[in-house]
């Protein structure tokens, strides 16, 4: 059967199980859009190509499958760069398809020609230019395999317009991936494994550092058994949240720069750290010279280049987290560890007193209360998609996730503007789920054009803007480290509720704590998307905080009486 390259692309995507793709048309990709119209694929028209990549990313993270984004050549492709980098840093399987000028014009600076494979080389797991219709099916299949195998990541396929227009025979089965035959390394020697087992069975104060890799490898069940057998307390990275229920007494919470104080202290006091699918990012270790000095380290990690990159480890078990944990399971001995677990409980110390949740209603609205009320009202079952900054950290602290893939957030790259489009993608992945955007007034203004996408697609995504009139996290750094010189952080915003109305979305503005829960409830009951503008305390800070490059145990703590000095002002 002869098909055009554009039709072959649509057929291949359909065969691969793709149902939705997120994109924006343009000259060099028009043949594909013409074919899309005749296909079963559902195309979501975005308002900016960055949004398309974040949507594909959100789709991938919520579903565990591959998300697909599409754009035209030139500016369409370059607009994708931030989204691709976001997916790269968080190991998210995204396939980006870009149109390219005809192969005869390549290199001639033709209209909307840009070397997008050159540009995205360091921020993709792989990328490729396709200039023959015959190569499209195989290359796209290869892209899917690469994106979602091993340590996942984004793959970009740049297809010239003539390849889209040319016709050739199409046979999905005959277009199997032909990836280069690579050397298979032995993941680890038996001695390495035995050393890990010995460390695990002899540790007095062990602690697990649980990362995103657990979710990626689908290791939740093996991890659960592993944790319970050894009675290992668990600390999570930001992206590891959800891999183990927050409600479990062994789950201590998030570690790192804005981790709970007792978690960071426990890390510093541990005699064994078991890192699973995490990469010792500087935001979780603080100063490496003082990081967990008494602890031996076991690193379970699929990416060999992460071993000994930041932290030197005593046993490196390279491999898929689930496989490694399943191999370790029969070798580890049951332990109760009453002393160590009791000690960690003691480490909580006065944290409860300092916790802003204990503060009586003093007429001020705090972001932490909004997020905690959202958690209660959604019974912790919503998919929460956050942006980057203070609200993101409060979400990690006060929304207690029990289920994997229910927190979608930009960790590694820290991309503001991620939340709204990523939530749209997550909603397409999980149409039955209660999807909430938790976003700051700064990040929201970066990609708020995607409100129109929500309306056009008639989907329900609720939006909680944590509006403090500042670029809050940067303001916090200015408060702590730049003597409160608030340069370029006070932020004027539109009336978000009115803006939502202009898009055809219901908008609410909340200024008092009593109104938070009823409004969240009413938003959940509504059949349509609701945007809620929460006017929160302007100069509240996220505590604890390990200053960048500081030691993990030396945190700036919330003052004992957590009153915040400024009142929310009417804009």
């Amino acid at each position, binding site marked *: 059967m002869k098909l055009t390259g554009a039709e072959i692309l649509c057929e291949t995507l359909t065969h691969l199980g793709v149902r939705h793709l997120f994109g924006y048309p343009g000259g060099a990709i028009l043949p594909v859009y013409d074919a899309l119209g005749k296909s079963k694929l559902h195309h979501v028209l975005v308002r900016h190509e960055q949004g398309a990549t974040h949507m594909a990313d959100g789709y991938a993270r919520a579903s565990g499958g591959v998300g697909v984004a599409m754009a035209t050549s030139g500016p369409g492709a370059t607009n994708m760069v931030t989204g691709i980098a976001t997916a790269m840093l968080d190991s998210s399987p995204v396939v980006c398809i870009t149109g390219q000028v005809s192969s005869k014009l390549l290199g001639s600076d033709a209209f909307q020609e840009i070397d997008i494979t050159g540009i995205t080389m360091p921020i993709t797991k792989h990328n490729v230019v396709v200039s023959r219709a015959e190569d499209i099916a195989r290359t796209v299949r290869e892209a899917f395999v690469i994106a979602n195998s091993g340590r996942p990541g984004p793959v970009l396929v740049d297809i010239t317009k003539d390849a889209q227009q040319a016709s050739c025979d199409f046979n999905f089965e005959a277009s199997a991936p032909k990836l*280069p035959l690579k050397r298979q390394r032995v993941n680890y020697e038996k001695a390495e494994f035995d050393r890990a087992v010995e460390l695990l069975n002899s540790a007095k104060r062990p602690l697990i550092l649980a990362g995103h890799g657990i979710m990626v490898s689908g290791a939740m069940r093996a991890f659960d058994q592993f944790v319970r057998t050894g009675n290992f307390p668990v600390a999570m990275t930001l992206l590891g949240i959800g891999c183990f229920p927050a409600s479990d007494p062994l789950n201590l919470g998030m570690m790192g720069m804005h981790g709970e104080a007792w978690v960071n202290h426990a890390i510093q006091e541990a005699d064994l750290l078991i890192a699973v699918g995490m990469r010792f990012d500087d935001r979780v270790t603080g100063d490496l010279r003082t990081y967990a000095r008494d602890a031996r380290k076991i690193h379970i990690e699929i990416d060999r*280049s992460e071993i000994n990159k930041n932290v030197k480890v005593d046993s490196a078990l390279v491999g898929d987290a689930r496989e490694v944990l399943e191999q370790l399971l029969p070798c580890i001995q049951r332990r109760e560890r009453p002393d160590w677990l009791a000690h960690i409980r003691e480490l909580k110390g006065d944290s409860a007193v300092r916790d802003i949740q204990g503060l009586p209603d003093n007429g001020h609205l705090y972001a932490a209360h909004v997020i905690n009320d959202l958690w209660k009202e959604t019974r912790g079952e919503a998919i929460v998609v956050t942006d980057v900054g203070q609200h993101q950290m409060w979400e990690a602290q006060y929304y207690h996730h029990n289920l994997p893939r229910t927190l979608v957030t930009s960790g590694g790259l820290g991309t503001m503007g991620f939340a709204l489009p990523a939530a749209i993608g997550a909603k397409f992945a999980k149409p039955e789920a209660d999807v909430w955007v938790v976003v700051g007034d700064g990040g929201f203004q970066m990609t708020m054009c995607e409100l129109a996408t929500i309306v056009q697609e008639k989907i329900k995504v609720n939006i909680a803007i944590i509006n403090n009139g500042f670029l809050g996290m940067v303001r916090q750094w200015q408060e702590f480290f730049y003597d409160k010189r608030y340069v370029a952080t006070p932020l004027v915003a539109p009336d978000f509720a009115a803006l939502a109305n202009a898009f055809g979305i219901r908008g609410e503005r909340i200024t008092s704590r009593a109104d938070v829960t009823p409004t969240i409830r009413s938003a959940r009951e509504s059949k349509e998307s609701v945007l809620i503008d929460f006017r929160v305390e302007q100069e509240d800070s996220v505590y604890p905080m390990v200053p960048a490059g500081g030691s993990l145990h030396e945190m700036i703590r919330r003052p004992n009486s957590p009153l915040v000095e400024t009142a929310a002002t009417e804009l």
Partner: protein
Amino acid sequence: MQTLVAYVENKPGVLNRVSSLARRLAINIDSLTVGPTDNEEIARMTIVAHTDERGAHRLEASLEKLVDVLLAENVSERPLLERDLALIKVTADQKTRPHLMELIKVFRARVIDVAPESLILEVSGTVDKIDGLLEVLRPFGVLEMARSGRIAMTRGGDLLRPPGAPPKTGELETAGSKA
């Protein structure tokens, strides 16, 4: 200085991916050579990089993450032969020529071009040997030089072959391989 050997897909852009990776890791490449193998779809690289063992491990492991890199191996700590090839154009007139010829003999270099005022020498060997020859040639006047960069091979039965390409029958089977 660390030496890595890599087998890569022989297609456009692969050299860029490899060098771009070293740049991203802030590793300075001292020399990088690429040459064909007996399989025309595979090329062999020798990479000499200014880094320590830890940097070399990162480079090696990161290189193997590239789809087009079939194998990358840090061979710095293994018994290794490294060779560099240099072409050196040196001033040579009637007076200096006999003296030059003596030196050339000592260094086992070869004269591959003779002109009235200059010679081109070809010399291969370790970097030290070539640097040594250059040192003694400098007073005569080195006009131009081209160096190939290092190629390297592990000694004896320590084989580094592209994946999926077993040694041909009879080849090195007796050389105490399987090392």
